[in-house]
């Protein structure tokens, strides 16, 4: 049916699809481009509104993408001669990995609480004429006023120049505490009770008859169901996602928490460990290879170890990277002191993303172990509403109590 489409318009639509993908990380490929062309062939392409509604239905997949789509559409398909509306800055660097399409503009909630420059209705109203200002869709971390911004940059530069930054190298484990760490890890795994799955699985003994397997067995005994097979609800075993703050401010605590992460990955295979300071690195394979009891040697972690902290950006990247693997069986453990040089809004957004998918999100802070601790740091304050728990982790004792503390909160 897209035979009716003028070639110029077909080319334009294809370019438009590519633009949504590269600039804003929409998950749209050649298949969607083909669908977009077919959809355009179904409507009156002279009616901009109809064309927009049709392309929108095909190309967006999340409510947050609606507003970006409308703005890009109006920019791209504006009448000739009309002044271009303000350019929407790309929400993603061009090299962004797929799976990042949630990286949209700042969330409606945040805008309402924010500087009040851009009052926005929650999700995009279909058919509403988008009146976007560029302010609304600033990329993360660049929307603050100049003074703040330059301050942040200064911090980054300083941390990059710091003698520790990017040094990486060996993180030595103190001997003798592995046994205790393993005990703490086991206690944590036991403490995280997820209950039983709702889904029935074949089990040796179970509460329900597995008619299918029983019948198969009966076929061998002349139709006499002598051997009964059973179904039951298996226990849901937890998955752990550990995110370790390796910034300088964490100091010795980072070493202890890293060894705790190692102990946990010795106790269960269902662990993913990441470290971050200015950058983010996946540690899981290194921890798996490490020999228990030996000093833990990590390769050059570059920006992940010993630099400054950008918790928000890193968690956001993590949420994106692990998106498909974080589910309701996942316990996210963030091990950080919350001394952050990034924007608290970014952190809040990252945690909201993680919380929407994960079973529980728990923050372990060495500072929380100090007497009289109040969660007043900017990052912690922003994070707190999205956390299931903020627990201390300053010493071996704290780690050993971790399991029990989590149970008490159940």
């Amino acid at each position: 049916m897209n035979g009716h489409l003028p070639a110029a318009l077909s080319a334009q639509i294809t370019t438009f699809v590519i633009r949504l993908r590269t600039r804003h990380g929409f998950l749209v490929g050649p298949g969607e481009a083909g669908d977009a062309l077919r959809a355009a062939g179904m409507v009156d392409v002279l009616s901009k509104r109809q064309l927009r509604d049709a392309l929108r239905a095909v190309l967006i997949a999340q409510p947050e993408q609606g507003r970006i789509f409308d703005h890009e559409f109006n920019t791209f398909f504006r009448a000739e001669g009309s002044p271009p509306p303000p350019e929407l800055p790309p929400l993603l660097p061009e090299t962004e990995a797929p799976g990042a399409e949630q990286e949209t503009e700042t969330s409606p909630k945040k805008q309402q609480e924010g500087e009040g420059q851009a009052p926005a209705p929650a999700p995009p109203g279909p058919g509403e004429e988008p009146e976007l200002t560029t302010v609304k869709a600033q990329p993360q971390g660049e929307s603050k006023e100049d003074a703040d911004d330059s301050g942040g940059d200064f911090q980054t530069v300083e941390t990059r120049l710091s003698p520790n930054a990017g040094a990486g190298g060996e993180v030595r484990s103190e001997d003798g505490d592995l046994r205790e760490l393993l005990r703490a890890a086991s206690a944590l795994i036991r403490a995280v009770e997820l209950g039983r799955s709702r889904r029935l699985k074949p089990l040796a003994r179970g509460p329900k008859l597995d008619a299918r397997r029983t019948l198969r067995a009966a076929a061998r005994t002349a139709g006499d169901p002598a051997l009964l097979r059973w179904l039951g609800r298996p226990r849901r075993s937890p998955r752990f996602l550990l995110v370790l703050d390796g910034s300088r401010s964490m100091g010795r605590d980072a070493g202890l928490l890293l060894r705790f992460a190692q102990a946990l990955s010795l106790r269960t295979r269902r662990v993913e460990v990441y470290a971050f300071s200015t950058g983010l690195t996946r540690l899981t394979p290194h921890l798996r290879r490490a020999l228990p009891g030996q000093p833990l040697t990590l390769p050059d972690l570059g920006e992940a170890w010993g630099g400054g902290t950008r918790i928000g950006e890193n968690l956001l990247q993590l949420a994106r990277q692990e998106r498909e693997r974080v589910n309701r069986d996942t316990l996210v453990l963030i091990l950080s002191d919350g001394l952050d040089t990034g924007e608290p809004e970014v952190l809040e957004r990252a945690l909201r993303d993680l919380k929407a998918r994960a079973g529980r999100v728990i923050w372990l802070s060495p500072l929380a172990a100090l007497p009289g601790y109040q969660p007043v740091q900017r990052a912690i304050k922003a994070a707190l509403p999205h956390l299931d728990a903020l627990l201390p982790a300053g010493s071996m004792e704290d780690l050993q109590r971790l399991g029990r503390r989590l149970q008490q909160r159940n």
Partner: protein
Amino acid sequence: MTSAADLMDPAALQAAFRAQGYVAGDALATALRLVPALQKPLLLEGPAGVGKTEAAKTLALSLGTRLIRLQCYEGLDAQAALYEWNYARQLLYLRSAEIGGGRVDDDELYGERFLMARPLLQAIQQEVAPVLLIDEIDRADDAFEAFLLELLAEWQITVPELGTIPARTRPHTILTSNRSRELSDALRRRCLYHWVEYPTARQELEIVQARLPGIDAALARQVTDAVHALRALPLGKPPGVAETLDWAAALLCLHRDHLDAESIEATLGAVLKLREDQLLAAPTLRGVAGRGVAGRAEAG
């Protein structure tokens, strides 16, 4: 009866929906029309009670085709959604084969006559494409979403003992979600997408009048205005269109022709269903009642 081809025009689809008492906005009408045209499923998301499920039902009515509905829940599995073997009959078959001295043929034991089609298999076996409603997909779990992928992309269902069953006709598929859980990107990619928003005050007035033809115009306006005022409040459970209709119907039932403090008091349960919400909304509703009485005095 209308065929899919007759609904090619959005205006035609809107008119057909209107005839069934469903007021569809332009964007929703376009999205619905693309479902048969592109033969892709449509994922409708939005707050509870904005008419997502109703849109699918109305589509079936407008197309004059069957509606096959699958309500999702956690732990929903292939046996409940796709197919199940009729074990009792299979056992009887085995016994009778044994008594008759015949050999049990595996192909026959797992043949189509012992297969019971559940909604999804039913949907692809129809002569005339039905509307398939997969309701509240966010309540099912990740594993069930994975089951769905084969159906929604390839329009076929694989039964291990029997082989692959291709679709006779592709059903017009609507999925709905309240976003209680994030859906996987794989599922989203296979669907067209539309976010259903609360209707505007004018649209909602049209909906009330379309659904409750006997209602007094002034009362309908009062009710929709009041509901819009309520939605602006930070309520725990904001009223959906379903609540608006319930409220208006309740007022009709009680033979009220305007909203005053007393009639609001009597029917509030139809629109606000949390005690905290009722307390929070009390001042707003007093304002509504005041305007209602004033408006009535003016009219009188």
